[in-house]
């Protein structure tokens, strides 16, 4: 049902199913992400949230269904192409490049324009602009002081923020954040959540996976809830959290057969 006055959603997840071997990680999940919103993707452990992000970026391939960006299907498009079209991912399992410093890590992302083709990359030596941008992004996430250090000796909280800075440096339209607040104390988490909200206000659409429900409820405008690979809730945060199905999934011991919201 198309409503001509409603703008097209930025991202559409349409009936996506992802399987690993015999296991169904994501089961016929559909939802939309509207331009400019800050969407929270929540659910108990093992619900498939990370897998969902991977299906969007192309790291995992859906067995069924498709993901659409600006109305165009992303099926079959390689990861780097999706990133160039405006997606950006900050992963749960942080993997910085260990041979270079934090700011050099971020600069690599900032150099997106120069690295689009090997030949162009060969002709560009200077990294001054990219390092400057890198420092700005590191500043934004609060770890500018560590810019010149190696990732090998940093705690998880710093590495998570490095991940985010790298994702930001790509200048995305849609930022996918996988548990960016993990490993941070409550003050740092609050500050970083504020930063995420700021980034969203500046025009970047954000999909946020987070277990820190306090911050999620504070900054997200809308929630999508997954449990055991299925969508069990969607909507305004308070309403979703009041939904008995959602509450059971989070607080109940055993898996409840969830009805689609």
């Amino acid at each position, binding site marked *: 049902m198309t409503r001509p006055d409603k703008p097209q959603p930025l991202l559409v997840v349409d009936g996506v199913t992802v399987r690993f071997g015999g296991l169904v990680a994501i089961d016929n999940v559909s939802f939309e992400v509207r331009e400019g919103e800050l969407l929270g993707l929540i659910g108990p452990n093992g619900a498939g949230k990370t897998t969902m992000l991977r299906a969007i*970026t192309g*790291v995992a391939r859906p067995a069924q269904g498709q993901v659409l960006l600006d109305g165009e299907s992303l099926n079959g498009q*390689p*990861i*780097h*192409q999706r*990133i*160039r079209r405006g997606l950006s*991912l900050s*992963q749960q399992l942080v*993997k910085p*490049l*260990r*041979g*270079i410093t934090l700011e*050099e890590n971020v600069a*690599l*992302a900032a*150099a*997106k324009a*120069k*690295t*689009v*083709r*090997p*030949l162009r*990359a*060969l*002709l*560009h*030596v200077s*990294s001054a602009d990219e390092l400057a941008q890198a420092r700005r992004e590191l500043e934004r996430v609060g770890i500018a002081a560590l810019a010149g250090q*190696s990732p*090998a000796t940093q705690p998880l909280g710093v590495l998570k923020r490095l991940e985010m800075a*790298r994702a930001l440096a*790509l200048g995305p339209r849609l930022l996918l954040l996988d548990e960016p607040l993990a490993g941070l104390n409550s003050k740092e988490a609050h500050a970083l959540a504020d930063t995420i909200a700021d980034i969203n206000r500046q025009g970047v659409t954000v999909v946020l996976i987070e277990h820190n429900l306090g911050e999620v409820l504070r900054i997200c405008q809308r929630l999508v809830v997954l449990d055991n690979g299925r969508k069990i809730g969607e909507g305004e945060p308070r309403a979703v959290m009041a939904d008995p199905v959602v509450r059971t999934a989070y607080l109940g011991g055993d898996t409840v057969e969830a009805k689609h919201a």
Partner: protein
Amino acid sequence: MNYEISLLTTMAISVMFALSLNLITGFCGQISLGHAAFQGVGAYAAALLAKAGWPFLATLPVSMLLAGALGVIVGLASLRVRADFLAITTMGVVFLFVGVVRQQDVLGGELGISGIPDHGLGKAGFMVVALLACAAVAALSVYIKRTWMGRVFNGIAEDEDTMRVLSIDVPRYKLAAFALGTALAGLSGAFYAYHLQFIGADNFGFVESITVLSMVVFGGIGSVPGVVIAAALLSVLPAWFQVIGDYKLLVYGGLLFLMMRFSPGGMAALARRFFNPVTPQGGRT
């Protein structure tokens, strides 16, 4: 004096060859067990052109082009296979090369091509050109490391999945590395053909491929000075250590093993530990 000149020329050619592999393996992390095939393509191209009357310098670009073209084909094929299979696929390439060349009479068959015409530069002149070419390849390697291409290569070598998420077209970069590396191997092949004035398919086989790979690893994958020194030393090892003579391969194999066992980062890692006795980061050069 002639002996030393010849030795230096051999060294220059080996260093060129090793640096070309360093581009692929060291910068981009792709293990190639068949690099000698590309040197062979360059050598055969130069030999045939020389016998057809072409001047020395004119054969160089053709050798590079043909070797690079084969490199792109192999690169494209290698992108299809899993990473673990890449090494064995490249091994297959060099066996294929030797196998095909040996059966073609037009390429000299099993006897190879002999009587390759003189380059006309004189022994010393040729050595100088070889050394210049070698220096150019080294300079190019150093330059690449300082560009964004080099930084991307480094990233790919360490963690190509992360690079994809950072918007890098990984397959394209790997192809670029292959094309460059194999073209330069072809260049070394052309010099090889003119230097020895005789080539056979067996000069460019599996053993030669793992020999050059060991030079790169011994020097320190990715390290330009390390590879230069390692290749220079190892290529003339048999000549220098006449006293070892009969045992030279034993020494060679033993050295390789010991180096990997005690300093996997090669000579470059040793040098760093020596001049900088702080705890080094593990892993990449």
